């Protein structure tokens, strides 16, 4: 009876599987253990993770009478994958057209339409403005004083319809008002709000979102716009959708626009041609261009851009690992995915955030040198058993699949890993072919982290592993 451990070193995790092999070659499965891969896959640093995984599986299975006979490692294809994300759109607000942030606690509810006026002009004899007023309160005003000033003005017949505050005082002020009005607070750059302009303030009840200002025709009604102008304000309405409160100010040349940011050019070489594609064209365009350059020889990014920096970093990592010069390292596959990232709006008054389009790129490098024998030697030294490289991943996966009852040749295996996705095909004639493509679990984790604005990779990983809904 011999104890054998098979070890699969992956980009993210290292798995060990313990089995007892009988005299006639009968295999009894005993258990598995999973550890985080140490170092870059296919490098001698993997030995620590492999040894830890072997010890873990031995500990889990419990006391064994037989000695560990052999450890067999996978012939890890040295695949290194890199990830980069590039935002390709931005939203710009000009001339303080709108305040669309979402303070946690706005005050009052409803819609108020009037002309903006600083609160100072409501004091005593400084009152000049007539008609409906939206009061703008700068920093340094106490909530009791704001409420007292507004109440006094309303009592004297001034038509105050809404207020915009710099501090976090909306609930405090509305609780003290005799006539309820909608109040939006926490507007950090309140001094940039233009005065004497027609504006609208809307606050929805708790748990609801605004209705009028997030609708182009609602805005058209409020500001009496003609059809051409209504078309112009549609980005404003779109940007405010989903908020509990909003302020829209009608300024002569104010606007909210979407703009494309140049993100660099990707140069794809393969099939005897060199194709160039702009990253800001989006993932579909990149993948379509990629399809025309198959089989791919190498990929370069425009120097000085994000995409150039990212591909250079992948090459640097590979140079460190293999000792090959950067010029000899070729990127053999890329995968581009469209995604959205929350980003701060330029020109916003209250740190508004808009969902911008972005492109995520995964790149994969293959080298001709595998250093798994070095890993095997280290594992053998640490465990005191024999250790060897058991076989090529693709071939091993296919043989593993064939142990499933009822499976026969031809068979294809797809391995969705952390850094790359591998596919192997065993034909009826017994020939095995395997391919590696870029983009796998790590890319999914990164997309989740950026779309949900999570800083913590572990949380994003948990979101990925425990989906709330499946399609």
């Amino acid at each position, binding site marked *: 009876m011999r104890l054998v451990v098979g070890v699969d070193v992956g980009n993210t995790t290292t798995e060990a599987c313990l089995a007892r092999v009988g005299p006639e070659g009968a295999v009894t499965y005993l258990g598995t253990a999973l550890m985080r891969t140490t170092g870059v896959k296919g490098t001698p640093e993997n030995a620590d993770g492999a040894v830890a995984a072997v010890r873990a599986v031995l500990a889990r299975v419990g006391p064994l009478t037989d000695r560990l006979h052999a450890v067999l490692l996978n012939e890890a294809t040295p695949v290194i994958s890199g990830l980069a994300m590039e935002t390709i759109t931005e939203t710009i607000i000009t001339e303080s057209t709108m305040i669309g942030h979402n303070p946690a606690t706005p005050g009052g509810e409803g819609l108020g339409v009037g002309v903006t006026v600083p609160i100072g002009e409501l004091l005593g004899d400084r009152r000049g403005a007539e008609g409906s007023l939206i009061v703008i309160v700068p920093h*340094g005003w106490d*909530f009791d*004083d704001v409420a007292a*000033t507004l109440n006094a003005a309303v009592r004297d017949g001034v038509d105050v319809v809404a207020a915009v505050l710099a501090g976090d005082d909306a*609930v405090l002020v509305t609780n003290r008002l005799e006539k309820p009005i909608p109040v939006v607070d926490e507007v950090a750059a309140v001094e940039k709000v233009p005065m004497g302009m027609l504006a609208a303030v809307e606050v929805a009840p708790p748990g609801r979102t605004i209705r009028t200002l997030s609708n182009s025709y609602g805005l058209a009604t409020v500001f009496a716009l003609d059809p051409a102008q209504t078309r112009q304000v549609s980005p404003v309405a779109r940007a405010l959708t989903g908020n509990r409160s909003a302020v829209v100010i009608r300024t002569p040349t104010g606007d909210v626009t979407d703009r494309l940011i140049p993100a660099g050019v990707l140069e794809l070489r393969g099939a005897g041609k060199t194709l160039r594609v702009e990253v800001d064209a989006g993932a579909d365009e990149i993948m379509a261009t990629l399809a025309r350059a198959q089989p791919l020889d190498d990929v370069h990014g425009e120097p000085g851009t994000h995409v150039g920096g990212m591909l250079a970093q992948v090459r640097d990592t590979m140079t460190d690992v293999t000792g090959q010069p950067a010029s000899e390292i070729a990127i053999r596959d890329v995968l581009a995915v469209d995604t959205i990232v929350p980003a701060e709006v330029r020109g916003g008054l209250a740190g508004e955030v808009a969902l911008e389009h972005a492109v995520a790129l995964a790149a994969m490098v293959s080298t001709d040198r595998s250093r798994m024998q070095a890993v095997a030697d280290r594992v053998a030294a640490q465990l005191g058993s024999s250790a060897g490289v058991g076989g090529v991943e693709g071939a091993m996966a296919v043989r593993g699949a064939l142990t499933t009852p009822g499976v026969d040749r031809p068979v294809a295996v797809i391995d969705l890993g952390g850094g790359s996705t591998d596919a192997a095909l065993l034909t009826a004639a017994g020939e095995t072919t395997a391919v590696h493509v870029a983009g796998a679990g790590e890319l999914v984790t990164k997309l989740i982290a950026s779309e949900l604005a999570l800083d913590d990779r572990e949380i994003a990983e948990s979101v990925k592993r425990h989906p709330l809904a499946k399609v």
Partner: protein
Amino acid sequence: MTTPAGERTVSLRETGPARRGTREDEVVIAVSPAFAGHFTKTIVDVPHAEVLRQLLAGIEEQGVTARVIRVRDTADLAAIAHLGAKLSGSGIAVGVLSRGTTMLHQKDLPRLSNLELFPQSPLLDAEVFRKIGSNAAQYAKGESPEPVPTRNDQMARPRWQAKAALLHLKEFECIEADRGPIEVEPAFELSPA
């Protein structure tokens, strides 16, 4: 532009022995024996009226109610805050000493532990007290707010330690050893500038 107002003052009217609250959406503010009584301002002259008003405002802005009690038999901040927490319907309390030192406490924590502690009284101003009130209310609602950023000044200790010690001695003299906590109602008054 400044606030068109004068100084505010506060007086605490005693309304009876402090009882345990039944509302789950309340925060108790527990003040020390000499707060808004023998003393009227903190170590850096923030009026007690402002301390209390900002704490109450921070709580109100979050839509939570507040009750104020005075603890009379100790000047130990942990004891004051923990007693307040045990009397609070939500189990959350803000403890405040006359010199300004403040603590957020929760009834199920050990007495010498706390949710948030603001030990350097000379660095606490109206804005910080507002945030402390806001955080207390958010804990009461079962949320996990970002702790209020604590400032740090290594010169605070040498500069203020002597005054703090004197203020503490005075507070200590105001202790009424065998009297339990009492419910108080703050009445704010605005004196013209």
